[in-house]
């Protein structure tokens, strides 16, 4: 446990001193700011029946596709390719601590980026007090639900990135692999859902399974303020499984 904190501190320190971190955060916030602005603008032109924050959370997949691979591809693959993973392994550090510290470092940074987007509704609220009188901009239920969704789904997404990074020594391959896996997990679930809707004669258990994997469905519930325990279980169990696999891979491929 002590090693975990030493490594985590090191991870966060390395994130803080490396320029790519700042470039990634600026780009992420610019993009998300632009999207939020576009949503507000759309609402001005035509009335919408969804809250701006609900609409904002429904585009979460855009940054996930590029931020998660960029954040995680370096973590283990990079260390392996320059050989510092070897030097790390010669210290009395457990492999679990190595994987967990990499995961936590990336996860903390990912969540910090998302929490920075909380600034958008706050700014909008401050600048246009009359618009927010109805509580549409700062709707606590949808904001809490949305960030809770991001926090839980982030566990799985970052774990996918860490796993991809642990099985190769090339950062590029790791990045591609996590991108495609994320694509399959996020979009694939939705496609399965579409198929399930179209064909009537689906067995009941299959229907339940498909629903279980529908990330957009989870988001819908969360951003309306409905918090279900099934998605929690889905994200955390899969994340734990992937991190466990990464530990085994590091152990075998050292």
């Amino acid at each position, binding site marked *: 446990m*002590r*090693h975990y904190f*030493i*490594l985590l501190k*090191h991870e966060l320190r*390395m994130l803080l*001193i*490396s320029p790519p971190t700042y470039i990634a955060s600026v780009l992420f916030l610019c993009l998300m700011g632009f999207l939020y602005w576009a949503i507000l603008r759309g609402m001005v032109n035509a009335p919408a029946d969804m809250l701006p924050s609900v609409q904002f959370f429904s585009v979460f997949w855009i940054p996930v596709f590029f931020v998660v691979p960029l954040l995680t591809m370096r973590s283990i693959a990079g260390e392996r390719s*320059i*050989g*510092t993973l*070897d*030097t*790390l*392994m*010669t*210290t*009395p*550090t*457990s492999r679990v601590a190595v994987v967990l510290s990499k995961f936590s470092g990336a996860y903390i940074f990912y969540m910090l980026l998302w929490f920075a987007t909380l600034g958008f509704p706050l700014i909008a609220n401050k600048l246009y007090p009359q618009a927010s009188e109805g509580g549409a901009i700062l709707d606590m239920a949808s904001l809490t639900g949305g960030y809770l969704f991001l926090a839980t789904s982030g566990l799985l997404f970052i774990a996918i990135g860490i796993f991809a990074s642990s099985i190769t020594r090339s950062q590029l391959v790791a990045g591609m692999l996590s991108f495609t896996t994320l694509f399959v997990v996020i979009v694939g679930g939705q496609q399965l859902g579409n198929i399930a809707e179209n064909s009537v004669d689906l067995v009941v258990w299959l229907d339940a399974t498909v629903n279980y994997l529908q990330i957009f469905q989870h988001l819908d519930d969360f951003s309306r303020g409905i918090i279900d325990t099934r998605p929690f279980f889905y994200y955390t169990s899969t994340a734990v499984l992937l991190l466990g696999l990464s530990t085994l891979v590091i152990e075998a491929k*050292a």
Partner: protein
Amino acid sequence: MEPIPSIRVENLTRQYGAITAIQNINFTVNPGEVVGFLGPNGAGKSTTMRILSGIMSATSGSAWVSGICVAQNPHEVKRKIGYMPENNPLPDDMRVVEYLRFRARLKEVPGNKLRESVQEVMEICDLARTARRKIIGTLSKGFRQRVGIADALLGNPEVIIMDEPTIGLDPHQIQGIRTLIDNLRGKLTVVLSSHILPEIERSCDRVIIINRGRVVASGTSESLREEFLPGNRFDVEIKGSEPDLLVALKEHGITSEIIHRQELGDNTHRLSLRTEGDETKNLGAQLIAALSQSPKFTLHSLAPRVPNLEEIFLAATKRSWEETIENKPKAAAKA
């Protein structure tokens, strides 16, 4: 009771798929010894060192470090070992002192001794004044190597394993590292591998030569010399013909063989002789007497030649090569 050897390796074998990297390696290293690991590229030096440091597991066989089995208790072994891998990987964007402190924390150096022990290894490796706050990415090769060695020394290990510590260094830096290793002699057990043979010969008490995954020779360079290159060697520069020389020597009861010749023109030759004579008598004096008595040639110079580790190494690895070739048909026949 015998002291526990620092490193004991028994029948260690490691296979990568169909390729056998090392096969039935056995050796022991006693506490305080400086041992050199020699072998051509791909002989299995790094594999052996990686298994010893617990990064990699062996396919079969066992290894003990300070009496602790590497396979059963890798964590405890890692506390006793300072390992510097091949190519000495370091993170480029950290400062030397930051990196060493981070490593010291990982190696479980107690918090109140952290600064002290980092300062101590930096002093030993001559980093304290010159490179303390420098960013590792901007350091020269020699300094990087010193950072690697400083890292290996952190946490008071009992055994230090260095994979090619002098690779890519200039003679001054090599000298520096040699002095460093000399300072460690007696306090710690040091195992190092190198391609630079004079380096190993000067700094190591004992040499282990491995080739094609097997230990082909082990011992001090003296004992290896006797085993692999018996007889005495002399470098002679004479004016006169070669056959006459051999005949003249035979008359004086010295059997000799020319192993290397070089024409210098004007009927002058520079020859390397291997002689087999009575070692108790002064062979050099006998040779001088024999050569100066004969009117057929003039002796210009004569010097005894001590084979260096390079020649021993070539002889040992060549012999094991022949052995394996000879062994092959037998193995095929058995199959």
